[in-house]
């Protein structure tokens, strides 16, 4: 095992990684920007280094500075968390050049999945079902129209280099396609520096279900069941759960096998997630692979008993994955609510500021992964995720009840949070009945 690991992230995930390191007796190095001097991850790590001003481009994305700190501090490995540099293959490569171990997959696997058009082609060849659409990308609007006529409207225009819901737009007819094409091209160029686009059939009322995989450096690959992540706002997840109410053992086995095939096709190592869209007829289609730990990994941990971050560290340190597929069961049900600093009554507008009161209950079966504390000022420079609440129960209803109890007894003052939304969502008939599609929030509003 490593003696010292640098955590190249901030917020709750940096805290989570530090805790996993502590469990294994590994010393930790935190990095921070000017805006994060008082941050929890900085207080928890054994050492902390300042890396620059608040904007991420000058701090948490400053590859050379972070590598310099890693070398100076004597860290042997670097954990990227999620977001920021986590899926940056050239960063992983740079770590390798400098003799540092990047805790994640090898850069070649990241590259294979990083470019969505290329990933679709590899998946198709590996026998993983993909959403109908064109595999090679579209050159211009005329070609887009042609492809759309072939696969039928509605279609989704997407950025080849995209992710996180940015640079994608649905079109229901040719006129909408013209607008979507222009808009996505501009956004793709602005956000990803690459204007190339591709087209997919839009799956109506899809569910967003993903499969967790773990693979060691020798290619031993297993899956750890699904997570249901359909409840989203602005194409970003808000509530996740495992298992999915929609997945039966047969579908789980099929999706799990497809995810393992996907990982093997690119020689994947470490923890990763294969995302699928599932239509109402239970057809599933490869969406993308996230080559990192996911925000919602705790629901898998709570239902399988496997510590995913610990395994990330073990695999990166060269240990074989001793878990076999048959060791992975499903114990009960877990739900995660993402607690964001935002105002659900004002269309989820950000709510940065000082947390004057922060009181989270301790309950059996309830876990809180937290990146803040009372007296901490939430900076407008970063993502609004404050904490993740995870509730486990022997049944789905039990998990919902526990989560409602936790949400109801949590006290946050000074800033607005998404807690009132979560309470409303979990109390709704829609959620109770498991009718969680990606249109959940709109449907919830309609049923009110």
């Amino acid at each position, binding site marked *: 095992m490593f003696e010292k690991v640098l955590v190249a992230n901030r917020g709750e995930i940096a805290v989570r990684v530090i805790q996993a390191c502590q469990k294994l007796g590994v010393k930790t190095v935190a990095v921070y920007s000017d805006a994060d001097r008082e941050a929890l991850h900085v207080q928890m790590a054994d050492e902390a280094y300042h890396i620059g001003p608040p904007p991420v481009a000058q701090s948490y994305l400053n590859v050379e500075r972070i590598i310099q700190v890693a070398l100076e501090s004597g860290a042997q490995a670097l954990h990227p968390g999620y977001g920021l540099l986590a899926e940056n293959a050239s960063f992983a490569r740079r770590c390798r050049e400098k003799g540092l171990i990047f805790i994640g997959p090898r850069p070649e696997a990241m590259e294979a999945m990083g470019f969505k058009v290329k990933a679709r082609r590899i998946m198709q060849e590996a026998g993983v079902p993909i959403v109908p659409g064109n595999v090679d990308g579209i050159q211009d609007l005329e070609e887009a129209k042609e492809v759309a006529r072939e696969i039928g409207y509605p279609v989704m225009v997407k950025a080849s280099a995209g992710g996180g819901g940015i640079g994608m737009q649905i079109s229901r007819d040719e006129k909408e396609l013209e607008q979507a094409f222009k808009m996505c091209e501009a956004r793709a160029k602005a956000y990803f520096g690459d204007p190339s686009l591709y087209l997919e059939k839009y799956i109506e009322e899809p569910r967003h279900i993903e499969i967790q995989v773990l693979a060691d450096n020798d290619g031993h690959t297993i899956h750890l069941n699904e997570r249901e992540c359909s409840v989203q706002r602005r194409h970003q997840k808000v509530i996740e759960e495992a298992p999915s109410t929609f997945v039966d053992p047969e579908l789980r086995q099929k999706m799990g096998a497809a995810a393992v095939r996907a990982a093997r096709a690119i020689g994947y190592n470490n923890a990763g997630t294969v995302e699928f869209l599932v239509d109402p007829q239970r057809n599933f289609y490869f969406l993308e692979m996230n080559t990192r730990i996911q925000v919602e990994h705790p629901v898998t941990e709570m239902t399988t008993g496997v510590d995913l971050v610990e395994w990330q560290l073990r695999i990166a340190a060269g240990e074989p994955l001793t878990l076999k597929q048959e060791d992975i069961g499903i114990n009960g049900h877990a739900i995660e609510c993402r607690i964001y600093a935002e105002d659900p009554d004002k269309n989820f507008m950000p709510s*940065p500021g000082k947390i004057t009161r922060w009181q989270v209950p301790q309950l059996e079966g309830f876990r809180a992964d937290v990146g803040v504390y009372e007296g901490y000022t939430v900076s407008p420079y970063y993502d609004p995720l404050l904490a993740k609440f995870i509730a486990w129960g022997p049944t789905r209803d039990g998990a919902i009840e526990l989560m409602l109890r936790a949400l109801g007894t949590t006290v946050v003052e000074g800033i607005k949070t998404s807690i009132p939304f979560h309470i409303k969502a979990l109390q709704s008939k829609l959620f109770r009945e498991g009718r969680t599609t990606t249109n959940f929030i709109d449907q919830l509003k309609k049923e009110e």
Partner: protein
Amino acid sequence: MAEVACPMAGVVAEVKVQPGDTVEPGQDLLILESMKMMIPFQSETNGVVREVKVNVGDFVNEGDVVIVLE
């Protein structure tokens, strides 16, 4: 004269008005970037812009006066 205060902390991403402009309710004054979102900040009243107190890239706190209208 009316001082227009910023509704939340963030970084000024775009200034949509300049001194002398006539504004009406609902018109964008600034675009703020906060927590990875672009948020248009709109005028609540009619008026003429007398002074813009911020530039693109400035950090503003909630309650900071950013624009003076008359």
